[in-house]
């Protein structure tokens, strides 16, 4: 028999395993064995009695010894081929007496290369062979048999053999996509069987990213997940995430679940991440009920594997970060020249403040104290800031226990002297199978982040930098700092004191899993998450230039947040023939408490004692404390059913109660239904269109809830009286006032979601796409509808208004193994969302928080609203004939379109002029490996989005400040084709909200590029390493955008006083041993 070859093949280096159990069914035993060993069993169910019980206890045995032990009482024989163990009934094999035919053939892969060592087996028997070095096999088989050809990494092929002959077989590479398991709400699921819209990335995607936060790493990787990273500040290089458009005027963030319990994304070391799943539609997210309206992000951290040897991983990077953009201010001579012009524009009778002589001196630098030319930005900001990251982890497991432990350190220097950030992370994930029916586990993590800044914080310092004119000297002739009536940012550097925020988190989740019956598991989870913040500010006496900095101040603030989560999850999986069922039932309770203490003193003190308030004036002390609590109780369930892996159906339901709502409206029920049809499993495709590997149609409907109330509305259903103070006899006396108008009808906002999806893979999944079309409608939004001032109270939240999001997500992939050395993949994603406020309940109008944004039916949330600029008043005729807004317009001021044609520019001439959230987002990921090198590139872009630049970032001499490069191209009687109106000092005539100041903020940027070199195996073997990789990478290196001086991801209504986004160049090292 040909089995003899088999043994010779597996004779080398067999791994050893330890395994122990007693009285398990053979089926369960085989599962256990598979888990422990990494081998897979093959058998014919008709020949093998799976219900018989077996026991075994081996230590450090070879696999073949262990299998012998396992099967000793069963009468079964076995063969081991690669990682497959074939079982056969010793008695019945000889009974096969059908007529035999001889078959031969060559097994090759999709590139035509022969596959060596492929397993060719007659279905239902143990007759089989292994292909040789040329991919050739030869076999005598019973007539009418079916051959099953299998090889690791390839999908099995079946072929019917009726006559003797040559059967060449081409194997298709097994698409990872189909067997990929993704994390879903309260469980995992095979991606192939998903009926909801779930996007996920795994650790590989984070491999060469020098990002400090998970949210930043998501940018551009998933369609429909819009990440905006507006700041590059140390400790804040994270992004805001919006899933498929904004669901409500009170924009809220997605729910973040880490390892099954409420968590936060940006306190995790990215090296610890195993996968991130984003639940985009109601079918996948309704299991999270009232918190799911904005989508759910599930973060899973790395775990060890039982029976795996300890592996130590190190990852380290060094990066240099520098701003992606900066406002370009003019130097002193240009400033003086334009200042003269602006003074004349304001009042032609005023004398020129700067003489020709002054301007000459500014230009030639001959009088550095009297006529300086200070580039304040360069004086204060470093060229680049250093960042380093180190992460060390150990994973492994014994036969019963698996573990992962990690430690990480991050240091990010800032662009200003006082600004930097340090972070420490630690994590231990443990899992242990105590008996065959009981397991326990523990996930613990700790994080500590220290954000250092001066008392004058970076943003204030930046504000001072962008306000102070270049004609102000830094120091006088004696070398002392000057205070020219404006804060001198150089004098403030390193001298103002501190503003230090310490954030800590401790998270411990313990769980027990019982498996009382086959297919039934009961999991109990208890989790405690404790977040702590300590913010200390100390203002030193940093008086300079004759200006007192005022009294010293100390502020110590402490904040505590606790989440207590308990869950009971019951899972039952059962298959009958072609029917498979999965049932989940669960109870979850979350209790959340928040407490704070804020203390301060002013006056007295000593600059050397910045950590204590005790030396400051005790009579000035102030303190505040308080907090709030929220409790939630939820029941949820899920039913999954599939027929032959072909017809998929899923139903989810969650019922939530929250302490935030009035008793009568407390419970909300959120159902979701979805179905999938895997057309590719149908015979008509399988048999006729071999090139289609995967084709699935999905349909979904569901509801999720939204409780996005303000933090001041923790108790919206309780009428309250708050304390305040007033003075009698110059002594403070407590007062009370009615602080909340109670709306007894308040309830959840509801988002109803419709989803249609199509997934496809062609040509061995070399090419494919996933397309989702969706429509979401939010009803009963929790709006703070304006109420009459005559009522005399702040408006309470009321359920009113609707928002609709319609759009699609599309992901197209292509990957190819060109030859043995070269492999590449291309992944392109694009998403479109049309956001529209469909009902404002008669309260259309300005956003109370920002008068540039209006909330208008038929327009998106975040619509800019204003006049439409239409050139300048170029001639006296223009000035006479063209409608004006104020009547005081002069030549060179902005003209606006008279939209209603009433010959006046009034409020009716305003319209929606832009939007602050992109309609289109896209990402393009290119990756290639060649021999030991790997290369990847991630492009990302957002389109149809605008930004409004105002104040220092736009206007000349704003607040007696500077002039920008763009102001050189100002309107003058000679320059009508200008990009800026006539220069002014204080006149605000051109500052009305208009399209003039709005800029298209669409962009395309090279989010990441990396090139890595994996040291060759023979070298690593010598030094005992499993893996070592060196790489260089860049973040945000190239940006195409129409904006001048500002990053396209910067805040969409800005004066420029923030920490710019950064680009980074990184060198990194990864090692495993």
């Amino acid at each position, binding site marked *: 028999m040909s089995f003899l070859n088999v043994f010779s093949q597996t004779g080398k280096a067999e791994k050893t395993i330890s395994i122990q159990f007693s*009285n398990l069914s053979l089926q369960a035993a085989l599962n256990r064995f598979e888990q422990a060993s990494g081998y897979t069993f093959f058998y014919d169910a008709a020949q093998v009695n799976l219900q018989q019980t077996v026991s075994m206890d081996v230590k450090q045995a070879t696999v073949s010894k262990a299998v012998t032990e396992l099967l000793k009482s069963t009468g079964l024989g076995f063969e081991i081929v690669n990682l497959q163990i074939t079982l056969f009934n010793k008695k019945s094999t000889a009974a096969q007496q059908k007529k035999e035919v001889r078959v031969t053939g060559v097994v090759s892969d999709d590139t035509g290369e022969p596959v060596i060592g492929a397993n060719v087996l007659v279905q239902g028997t143990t007759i089989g062979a292994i292909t040789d070095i040329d991919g050739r096999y030869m076999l005598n088989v019973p007539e009418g048999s079916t051959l099953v050809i299998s090889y690791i990494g390839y999908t099995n092929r079946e072929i019917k053999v009726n006559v003797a002959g040559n059967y060449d077989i081409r194997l298709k590479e097994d698409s990872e996509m189909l067997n990929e398991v993704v994390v879903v709400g309260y469980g995992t699921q095979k991606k192939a069987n998903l009926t909801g819209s779930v996007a996920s990335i795994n650790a590989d995607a984070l491999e060469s990213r020098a990002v400090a936060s998970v949210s930043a790493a998501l940018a551009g990787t998933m369609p429909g997940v819009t990440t905006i990273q507006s700041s590059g500040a140390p400790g804040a290089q994270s992004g805001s995430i919006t899933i498929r458009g904004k669901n409500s005027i009170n924009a809220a963030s997605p729910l973040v679940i880490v390892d099954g319990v409420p968590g936060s994304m940006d306190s995790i070391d990215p090296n610890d991440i195993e996968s991130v799943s984003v639940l985009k539609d109601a079918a996948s997210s309704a299991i999270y009920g009232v918190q799911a309206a904005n989508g759910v992000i599930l973060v899973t951290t790395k775990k060890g594997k039982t029976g795996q040897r300890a592996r130590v991983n190190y990852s380290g990077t060094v990066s240099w970060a520098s701003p992606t953009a900066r406002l370009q201010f003019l130097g002193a001579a240009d400033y003086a020249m334009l200042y003269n012009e602006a003074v004349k524009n304001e009042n032609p009778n005023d*004398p020129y403040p700067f003489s020709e002589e002054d301007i000459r001196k500014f230009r030639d630098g001959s009088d550095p104290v009297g006529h300086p030319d200070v580039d304040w930005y360069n004086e204060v900001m470093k060229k680049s800031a250093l960042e380093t990251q180190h992460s060390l982890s150990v994973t492994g497991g014994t036969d019963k226990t698996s573990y992962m432990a990690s430690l990480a350190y991050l240091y990010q220097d800032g662009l200003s002297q006082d600004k930097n950030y340090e972070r420490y992370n630690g994590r231990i994930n443990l899992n242990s199978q105590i008996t065959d*029916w009981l397991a326990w586990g523990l996930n613990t993590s700790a994080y500590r982040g220290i954000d250092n800044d001066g008392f004058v914080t970076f943003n204030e310092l930046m504000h001072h930098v962008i306000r102070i004119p270049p004609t102000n000297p830094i120091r006088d002739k004696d070398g002392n700092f000057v*205070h020219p*009536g404006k804060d001198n940012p150089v004098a403030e550097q390193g001298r103002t004191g501190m503003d230090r925020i310490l954030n800590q988190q401790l998270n411990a989740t313990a769980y*027990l899993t*019982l498996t*009382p*019956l086959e297919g039934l598991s*009961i999991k109990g989870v208890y989790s405690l998450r404790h977040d702590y913040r300590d913010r200390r500010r100390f203002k030193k006496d940093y008086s300079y230039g004759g200006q*007192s900095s*005022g*009294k010293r101040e100390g502020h110590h603030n402490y904040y505590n947040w606790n989440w207590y989560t*308990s*869950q*009971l999850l019951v899972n039952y999986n059962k298959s009958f023939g072609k029917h498979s069922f999965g049932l989940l039932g669960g*109870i979850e309770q*979350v209790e959340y408490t928040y407490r704070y203490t804020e203390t301060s003193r002013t006056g007295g003190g000593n600059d050397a004692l910045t950590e204590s308030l005790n030396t400051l004036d005790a*009579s000035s002390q102030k303190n505040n404390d*308080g*907090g*709030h*609590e*929220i*409790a939630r*109780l939820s029941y949820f369930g899920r039913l999954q059913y599939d027929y032959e892996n072909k017809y998929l159906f899923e139903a989810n339901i969650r019922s939530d*109660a929250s302490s935030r709502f009035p008793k009568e409206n*407390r419970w909300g029920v959120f159902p979701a239904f979805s179905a999938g049809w895997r057309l590719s499993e149908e015979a008509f495709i399988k048999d006729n269109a071999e090139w289609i590997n995967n084709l699935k149609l999905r349909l979904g409907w569901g509801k999720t809830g939204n409780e996005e109330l303000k933090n001041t509305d*923790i*108790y919206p259903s*309780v*009428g*309250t*009286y708050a*304390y305040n*103070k*007033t*003075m*009698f*006899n110059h002594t*403070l*006396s*407590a*007062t*009370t*006032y*009615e602080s909340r*108008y109670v709306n007894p009808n308040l309830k959840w906002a509801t988002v109803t979601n419709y989803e249609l999806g199509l997934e496809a893979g062609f040509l061995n999944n070399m090419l494919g796409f996933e397309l989702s079309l969706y429509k979401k409608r939010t009803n009963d939004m929790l709006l703070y509808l*304006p*109420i*009459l*001032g*005559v*009522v*005399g*109270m702040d408006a*309470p939240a009321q359920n009113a208004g609707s928002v609709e999001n319609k759009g699609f997500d599309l992901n197209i992939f292509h990957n190819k193994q060109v030859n043995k050395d070269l492999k590449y993949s291309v992944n392109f994603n694009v998403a479109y969302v049309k956001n529209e406020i469909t009902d404002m309940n008669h309260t259309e109008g300005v956003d109370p928080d920002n008068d540039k944004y209006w909330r208008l039916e038929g327009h998106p949330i975040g619509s800019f609203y204003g006049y439409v600029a239409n050139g300048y008043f170029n001639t006296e005729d223009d000035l006479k004939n063209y409608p004006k807004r104020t009547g*005081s317009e002069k030549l060179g001021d902005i003209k606006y379109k008279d939209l209603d044609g009433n010959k006046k520019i009034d409020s009716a001439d305003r319209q929606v002029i832009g939007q602050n959230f992109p309609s289109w987002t896209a990402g393009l990921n290119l990756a290639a490996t060649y021999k030991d090198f790997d290369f990847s590139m991630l492009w990302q872009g957002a389109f149809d989005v605008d930004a409004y630049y105002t104040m220092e970032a736009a206007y000349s001499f704003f*607040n007696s400040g500077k002039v920008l490069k763009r102001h050189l191209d100002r309107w003058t009687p000679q320059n009508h084709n200008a990009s800026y109106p006539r220069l002014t000092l*204080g006149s605000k005539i051109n500052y009305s909200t208009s399209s003039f100041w709005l800029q298209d903020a669409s962009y395309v940027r090279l989010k990441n590029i990396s090139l890595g070199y994996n040291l060759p195996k023979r070298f690593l073997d010598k030094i005992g390493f499993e893996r070592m990789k060196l790489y260089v990478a860049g973040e945000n290196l190239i940006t195409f955008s129409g904006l001048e001086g500002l990053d396209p991801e910067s805040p969409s209504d800005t004066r420029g006083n923030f920490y710019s986004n950064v680009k980074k160049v990184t060198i990194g090292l990864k090692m495993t041993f």
Partner: protein
Amino acid sequence: MKIRNILYAIAFMMPALTSCVDLERYPLEELSDVTYWKEPKDAEMAVSDLYRSLPYWDVDDAINSDDAVHGIKWAAGNISIGVYDPSDFSWSDNYSAIRKANTVFAKIDNITGYNTADKNKVLGQAHFFRAFQYFTLIRQFGDVPYTDSPLNLSDQDGVKRMPRDEVYAKMMTDFDKAVEYLPVNWSAAEYGRVTKGAAMAMKSRAALYYNKWDVAAEYAKKVIDSGVYSLYDKENTGKYQELFWEKADGCDEFILVRQFKESENSWYLIGWEAFPTKGWGGINPTQSLVDAFEDIEGSPIAQSKIYNEKKPFENRDPRLEVNVLHDGEVMYGVNIKVAPLKSSGVTGIGQHGDATATGYYQQKWLDPSIEPSSKGWDMGKDAVVIRYAEMLLTYAEAKNELSPLDPSAFDAVNQVRKRVGMPELQNTDASKPTYCGTQDALRQRIRNEWRVEFALEGGKRQWDIRRWGIAKEVLNAPFLGLKYKLVDSSSAVDGDGGKICILYEGENIKLTGSKYEDHNYLYPIPQSERDLNSNLTQNPGYPN
């Protein structure tokens, strides 16, 4: 084995199935309906909160009159130039205070065993504040919605404007109740609460605003005759300026104040108003205000024999120096120079973003004991809501209208003049510049007395010019600053470009552009309110 496992499973699930999180949560930092309005203290604390609605920042309103403009190149206030629209206005704060008062009326009877005397004191304060808020509202907006109970959201559609005269009548009833219920004096620990005198004074102010001369005179007289209040430094020992400093807190001239104390409950008047860079140079007096002060003999400067326009600050009503900080004075150790030249330093016209727009800085309120650049932002001086001098001038004005040239009118206005050493007005000696031979002559002198006595106490002038009907006239006149001229000189200081500046000669600094019209006598009804309720009509002259 299976049965055992199931038992384990049940035991395991029991705690989770039986423990239940408590969903009834109550605020930790606030009292709730369940616990409030039970005892007298609750009512007292609720009415105390109304004191937070007393005005204090209205001193800044001087820019809404012809007395001052803003520094920081903001020029005259939009109110005084008539450039504003309905969306710039809100009355929410007034109605919020009215709701607080109405809540006291609605809930106070929930408290059992409340003794009438104490309860009336609370009610008296609530009546006062409600009346005070309606007075503030009708003075600004004319007809306004009136409510005497806390409104529900469902009441909104029924809200409409009540004719001003009806609101006035209801307000007067409230004042009467306040006068009836409030004590003449509170215990020392309660100093600062509204007294009977304060209620009478506010009633008198409200009556004067609507030319109800008899009521105004009657209630001013009651305050005068009560003997509780008197002028500060009425003997003229030279301490008049201290009336505006922190040391005067608690004096008998103050009928109602809003109390402050450094660091505990402070405000930032001096930090805002002081000249640069000690403060933000907030208020700059106009030439018109400077010229309103008589010469020391009691003659208006236009007719003065001793006024020297090149030395305008000599021989003037002493109150001029108290109010106006001018070139050559030293304040907070800074020698004030206003010439528009580099050598003036930061106080010179145009030398600094916060520098004066008129050539003058405000001096009233600049307390030498308060360091402006730090404590000026955290000062403890009380903000005066009504002081006794107002009652004297109210009486004088009302009496002269009821009974022209009544000696008691002369007596009242002269008390105010005497305390600063100004000669008495009279109708006996026509040769003196203080002679007022006709009712109108005395009327004009009293009006001028209002202006100079209450200069830069912004809560007054802007309303006086409206009630006298002269707002359109005085606000449309150009706003002037001091005169100066720049001349070439060999003695010019380095950096001044060969120029020296001669002050009080040449042309006045001039600001124009006012468009004050008849309709501006009333403010527009807030647009945000009209957007929500179409019953709320707009005042005439504003975009509908």
